[in-house]
């Protein structure tokens, strides 16, 4: 009996201790209604050390797990850009000392590592991410700690954050040019094939809106989970729908399965060409000769004739562990580091608020391999040229279409009257 009551006492004591601690803390924490918390950010002062002759930057890419397939290259090109910048004297005279972290294809890990880079390693900015999930995991963390995150991949748009810079295309720089290209080709019947996740779903929602305006009929829409390669059932539906073009928003190795099923079913590039937004020079070799003759919409291609592109390709080919070919996402990652350099040098400081203020000038530019890009200080995206390439037997792209000028970034599609204003308003509201 005595043991029982003793145990009860222990338990009660433990419970009481926990509750007390919780209550004491609750008293300190900000609550929803507090005026002080209105902004939401009460970030501790930055711990970035700018006193030495080097500056720490964080690179965050999946080096293991499924996304390592794509993100290893981005990580490598960031290293190359850092080496180049260091060889040229660094940023504001400080050498880049980068810390590479592995996101491990795990989104909470992206959040954790971002926080580690910002608060433990005290890096001045973080570069990386690939999937939208990884970006969404990082977003609240950089906002909370008022850090900087440079995201290098084309994405579904409808987002902006004071703490994120987007150096890949938003929808009006990749999807809309692709649709314009299809319109010039006289496409009437379009089929949408995508992986079942946010980017293809959003892209296709936009495509459908724009197609209505262009008079292109959408004859079908199919999705397969990201990790499934077998497209035979869906391709049978494509055959039945008889489209004259296929808009492909499939991502990853599922593309290989799609192309194979497509050829198995007797479709080919002459009768039913495909335009993709995620097959680049990196991905094409894994698909063999079957991908030849199809199209892709990107801002950068290795075959682009710009003043800076040859040097970029040359450096990359010589870089250790390089894949030997350059492609859009890695070029965007390359831009991101140089863009940061330009921003810091314009601000004359590594301080986040000063960097953001410098961006507002709308005068930050970089002579990128895709051409001279300009940063939009309001939405933190960059202007980009639209290009359509056709895949040749060497898995390179012949440029068949180019936008007449650099396309200004427009993540909320404000310059497009066919995009319903009420949706835009709700989206902007929701983003806060």
């Amino acid at each position, binding site marked *: 009996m005595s043991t029982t009551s003793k145990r009860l006492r*222990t*338990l009660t004591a*433990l419970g009481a201790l*926990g509750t007390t*601690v*919780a209550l004491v*803390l*609750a008293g*300190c*924490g*900000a*609550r*929803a*209604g*507090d005026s002080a*918390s209105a902004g*939401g950010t*009460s*970030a*501790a002062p930055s711990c970035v050390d700018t006193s030495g002759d080097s500056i720490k930057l964080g690179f965050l890419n999946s*080096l*293991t*797990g499924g996304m390592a397939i794509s993100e290893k290259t981005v990580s490598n090109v960031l290293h190359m850009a850092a080496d180049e910048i260091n060889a040229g004297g660094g940023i504001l005279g400080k050498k880049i000392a980068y810390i590479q*972290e*592995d996101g*491990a*294809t*795990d*989104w*909470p*890990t992206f*959040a*954790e590592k971002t*926080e*580690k880079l910002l*608060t*433990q390693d005290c890096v001045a900015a973080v570069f990386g991410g690939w*999937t*939208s*999930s990884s970006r*969404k*995991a990082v*977003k*609240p963390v950089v906002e909370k700690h008022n850090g900087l995150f440079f995201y290098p991949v084309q994405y579904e748009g*409808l987002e902006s954050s004071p703490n994120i810079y987007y150096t890949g295309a938003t929808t009006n720089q990749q999807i809309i040019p692709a649709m314009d290209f299809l319109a010039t080709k006289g496409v009437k019947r379009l089929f949408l094939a995508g992986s*079942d*996740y*946010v980017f293809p*779903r*959003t892209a296709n*929602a936009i495509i459908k809106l724009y197609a209505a305006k262009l008079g292109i009929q959408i004859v079908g829409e199919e999705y397969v*989970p*990201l990790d499934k390669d077998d497209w035979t059932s869906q391709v049978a539906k494509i055959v039945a729908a008889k489209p004259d073009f296929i808009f492909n928003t499939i991502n990853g190795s599922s593309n290989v399965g799609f192309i194979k099923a497509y050829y198995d079913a007797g479709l080919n590039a002459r009768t039913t060409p495909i335009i993709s937004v995620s097959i680049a020079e990196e991905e094409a070799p894994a698909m063999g000769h079957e991908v030849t003759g199809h199209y892709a919409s990107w801002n950068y291609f290795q075959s682009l004739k710009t003043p800076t592109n040859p040097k970029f390709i040359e450096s990359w080919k010589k870089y250790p562990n390089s894949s030997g070919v350059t492609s859009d996402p890695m070029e965007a990652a390359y831009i991101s580091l140089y863009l940061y350099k330009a921003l810091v040098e314009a601000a004359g400081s590594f301080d986040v608020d000063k960097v953001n203020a410098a961006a507002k000038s709308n005068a930050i530019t970089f002579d990128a391999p895709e051409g001279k890009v300009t940063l939009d200080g309001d939405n933190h995206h960059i202007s980009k040229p639209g290009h359509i390439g056709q895949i040749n037997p060497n898995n390179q792209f012949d440029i068949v279409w180019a936008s007449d000028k650099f396309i200004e970034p427009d993540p909320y599609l404000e310059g497009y009257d066919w995009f319903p204003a*009420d*949706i835009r308003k*709700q*989206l902007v*509201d*929701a*983003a806060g």
Partner: protein
Amino acid sequence: MTKLKPWISLGGIGVFAFLLLGVAPLVLTDHWINNLGKYCCWAIVAVGIGLAWGRGGMLVMGQGVFFALGAYAMAMHLTLETAGDRIPGFMVLYDPLAPLPAFWEPFRSAGFTLLAIVLLPVIVSGILGYALFKRRVKGAYFAILSQALAVALATLISSTIRQTGGDTGLSDFKYFFGFVLNDPANKLLVYLIAAGLLVVCLLAVWQLYRSRFGELLVATRDAEERVRFLGYDPANVKLVAFVASALMASIGGAMFVPIVGIITPAEIGAAASILMIAGVALGGRASLFGPALGAMAVGWGQSSLGSTWPDGWTYILGLLFIVVILFLPNGLSSLPARFAAARRSPAPPPPTPAAAAAELEGVRS
């Protein structure tokens, strides 16, 4: 000696609680407190797995399902709390005029959410467990089926973007039951709740293990048919352990959300569900502290080794499965006993044929 043992364990829980609730907040930075909070969530799940697998013999490879129930219930509430009267942003694009999906509505209420975190896993695991155990689905079948369920749920969530946020999941929570999440003091509060729940789960399991039910569970694990011939329905015994483990997975999931700030299908699918088991195997599936400490060790390994040597970490994780299961089936927590036994008598204890036979039976039939 045997009389004393449970009290030593209780003392251990006390020390553990003191370290987690008292010492950790004083000596660790905010970042590591947050990490520790995440490990605590995994540890809560692991304690449940230890109960179901270590003591009950049910290899639960689909705890992601119950983790998801708790996590999404919490995340839906936090999303609505952040969105206020508006419809969450990700829903707008697909159908701007449609209202909030009906199943989201009740999650506006904090009370309902908390109730759902407890009741949903109990109901789902109760139905599932009843159906499977009554039909005597066990062993590898049970493991594979539970894993298949986790995969199916992850796929379903990925493809229902408007209803669940899809593969990018739910994130960007501003408030936690009225508390501003960005406030470090509130983050600490969330951590303390998670750590406190872990201690509560350990206490619950401690009592369960030393109760008659704990003995009956072990008996069911080792010789299910024999238990049946004692007049018990082993299905009910297993069901209770399974439901308890599902509840813990749900609680772990629910706390995971405010601590980590994002929940996506990737956290509940096959790989995630298997990773939840890794720590349990490492620490010792049948011991009281093994699963929790193992899960925390794996989490810590991912944080620290994953930083310094990412490729190596994957190999280490693979080797960990192999070496621990092959040479130390009862995990690291069995090491002291092994050393003690080795010192006393050089011959290792013989494997228990009854258990092996029962397990083989479970696999085959």
